[in-house]
């Protein structure tokens, strides 16, 4: 057990792996704690990486404020933590809520970033995303943590995974109910109230950034990640096939291989951040982890990017029933 003092509060963290190896940091999602990264950290430690997981203010074993949490402070906490463990630079990864912190960290503390791995995140909210946030919050406060978890599960995971892991998920839900504190999760959600779009600031990010988005993620859909791709010059967007929001749980080995590939490329000067779009393999044993996306990745139907220009309608285009032919 390790703690760092941040202001008057304690931040819990776990640092594993050999010092000197490339360090990968994991920033939790909303109801997550350090333990949920185990499948990533165990694998990455074994293949030669150092890993750092920590609980944000209000999560797990870190201090849980009652009056207020400032969302921007999450990046400050990480900055202090990296300074505390005396690391010059690290690869910062985060999912969902943690993905937002990862991006903000990249903007505010570039000197401590070697690269960013951003998963299922957002930099602004459209009305749909905002409304979903409001619904989740209402579920938490009016019904309880159980309602929040019940709403999140089908957003986070595929129908197949939900069906095949029904019993495991029931146990996980129970564990989450017992381990999480409602008021602390509520505080974290309320910290989003002051959230303001920071899309224009993404241009400040110059370090390599790999952006991961689940194919069917409807909590933070493609447009959220497309904004990141278009605004982060040194980036690549990867679409994780068949995945929903929480692909680190559903496709852990594929995600582990993407982490390894990304860090390996950056460390060996082989990374080319050209804002290109890639698709992650759905076979964890395949030789290639990523292959180029050739279709229009912003659409749900497979329309080629190269389309014929629209023809002008003339009298000759009329069909037998007198209506103009469709172009």
């Amino acid at each position, binding site marked *: *057990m*390790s*703690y760092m*003092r941040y202001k008057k*509060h*304690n931040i819990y963290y*776990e*640092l*594993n*792996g*050999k*010092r000197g*190896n490339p360090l990968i940091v994991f920033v939790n999602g909303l109801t997550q704690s350090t333990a949920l990264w185990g499948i990533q950290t165990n694998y990455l*430690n*074994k*293949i*030669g*990486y150092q890993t750092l997981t920590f609980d944000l203010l209000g999560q797990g*074993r870190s*201090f849980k*404020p*009652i*009056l*207020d949490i400032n969302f921007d402070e999450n990046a400050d906490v990480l900055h202090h933590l990296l300074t505390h463990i005396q690391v010059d630079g690290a690869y910062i990864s985060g999912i969902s809520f943690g993905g937002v912190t990862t991006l903000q960290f990249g903007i505010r503390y570039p000197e401590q970033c070697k690269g960013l791995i951003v998963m299922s995140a957002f930099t602004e909210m459209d009305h749909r995303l905002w409304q979903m946030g409001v619904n989740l919050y209402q579920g938490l*406060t*009016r*019904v*309880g*943590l*159980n309602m929040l978890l019940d709403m999140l599960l089908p957003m986070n995971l595929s129908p197949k995974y939900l069906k095949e892991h029904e019993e495991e998920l029931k146990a996980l839900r*129970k*564990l989450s*109910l*017992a*381990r999480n*504190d*409602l*008021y602390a999760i*509520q505080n974290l959600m309320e910290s989003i109230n002051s959230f303001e779009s920071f899309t224009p600031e993404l241009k400040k990010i110059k370090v390599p950034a790999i952006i991961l988005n689940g194919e069917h993620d409807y909590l933070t859909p493609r447009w959220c990640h497309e904004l990141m791709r278009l605004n982060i010059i040194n980036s690549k967007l990867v679409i994780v096939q068949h995945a929903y929001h929480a692909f680190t749980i559903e496709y852990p080995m594929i995600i582990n291989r993407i982490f390894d590939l990304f860090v390996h490329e950056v460390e060996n000067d082989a990374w080319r951040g050209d804002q290109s779009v890639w698709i992650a393999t759905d076979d964890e044993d395949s030789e290639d982890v990523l292959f180029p996306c050739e279709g229009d990745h912003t659409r749900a139907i497979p329309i080629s990017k190269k389309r014929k220009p629209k023809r002008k309608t003339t009298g000759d285009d009329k069909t037998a029933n007198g209506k103009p032919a469709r172009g």
Partner: protein
Amino acid sequence: MAEKEKEIKGPDSEEENREDALATAQERAARHLKDHGLGEIEQTKITLFLQSTQLAKSVILPKVAYQNMDWLPYKFFHQQFYRNSELSTLLARATKWTLDPFVYMKYWEIASYFSARTDLLKHFSLNFAMNDAAVQLYEFLAFSHALLSEIRTSPLVLDLPENDYTRLLFELEEENGRQIQLQIRLLKGIDLPLSLDEKEEIILSEREKVGAVFQRFLGFLCER
């Protein structure tokens, strides 16, 4: 294979000590129940303790009943009072009570410690006039927030087979989550002549008191 290196450091502040000590006591109690089961003695101990907390939470309504208070918070105080009574009696019904008188006698020590450590009588005897005793009201809100948030019995029965009693413990915490909204809203929003630091200090102090009581109870729960 990379060498695995784990930093192990002890907590370095009082607050850490308190939180870790409580977490450790909870883990120990959960292991105890897993090893020895949730029998009559254990159920009796848990119910007695939870009933004490329900009683402590219920002191507020008689205090605010005659105050000039906005309708909405009053309505929620009212709701808390009757919901507490309902849950307390349900819990009594679901409990397999022990006939061993020593458990009840021994519990008296916990109840006394509860009362002394949290300064419970102060909350019973105060008149929460909304203007001149606002700080005491804030203290009560912080105290009742701590009762609802610090005392968590569901982690103790997580690994045990489900039955009416364990399900009720989970339901109780779900209900606490709904009830605590009143405390959260008032602690955050009530207009008082207190700075943010002063408010935080009160909250931390009440949390520490309630945490200490819960920790003492967990030790009692593990006694054979």
